[in-house]
């Protein structure tokens, strides 16, 4: 799995490429942990290259929801494939985070 980070003026853009499972979740966790330590609380996540996600991958995002909320931040996912979106929906994570179709939609949420 590859994680690409782009630091923009008012948000962090994270692109995930490959499979986010129990094996690679630690890599995702390190990126999220570092982002929040550096006070990046507006995060948009590009899932166009995300081929697969398991509960361990989703668990990383779930564990940062409260910290992001408490800093009035946002975690917005976009470009999800039907299969990845289905996993979010089975667990109900689509009710706790924002999921939008495009990058422009994600930025719109960040910009308020």
């Amino acid at each position: 799995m590859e994680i690409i980070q782009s630091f923009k003026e008012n948000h962090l853009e994270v692109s995930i490429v490959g499979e986010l499972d129990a094996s690679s979740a630690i890599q995702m966790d390190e990126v999220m942990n570092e982002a929040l330590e550096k006070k990046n609380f507006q995060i948009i996540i590009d899932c166009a290259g995300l081929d697969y996600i398991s509960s361990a991958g989703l668990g990383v995002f779930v564990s940062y929801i409260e910290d992001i909320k408490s800093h009035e931040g946002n975690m917005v996912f976009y470009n999800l494939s039907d299969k990845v979106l289905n996993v979010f929906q089975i667990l109900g994570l689509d009710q706790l985070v924002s999921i939008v179709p495009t990058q422009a939609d994600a930025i719109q949420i960040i910009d308020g």
Partner: protein
Amino acid sequence: MANNISVICNKNELKKIRSFVNQHLKDLPFSSKEKHEIVLAVDEACANAIIHGNACDEGKSIDVVLTHDNSTLSVTVSDVGDIDFVEKRVMKKDLERLARERKKGGMGLHLIFAIMDEVRFYTRNKRSYCTLIKNLPH
């Protein structure tokens, strides 16, 4: 028809198991969405066995056996771990609570129960078994 794979208790082996299950499902009459969900459920069961059952001890292994007949697909994951059924039930938790508690785990069993038609846990001869059953479409 039966197929099986055995892997050491290393999380990197999960990809190999997913590929094995995908290959086995190729000719079964599930939709693409259902096949993906079954692979996910097996992945979750194996991750549980590797991480919680065997603490990623590479000296141990887990076995995955797939069988099917005209009505059901059955996938059994077995390991030498000793987490019992009651503990596994407790691991099924509410997502909002996990978020409040900043927990990263605890959702795997929820996925397994949501996807499969039946889930059985049992121990035999000091080995733990988890059998996932999915009815084939009519």
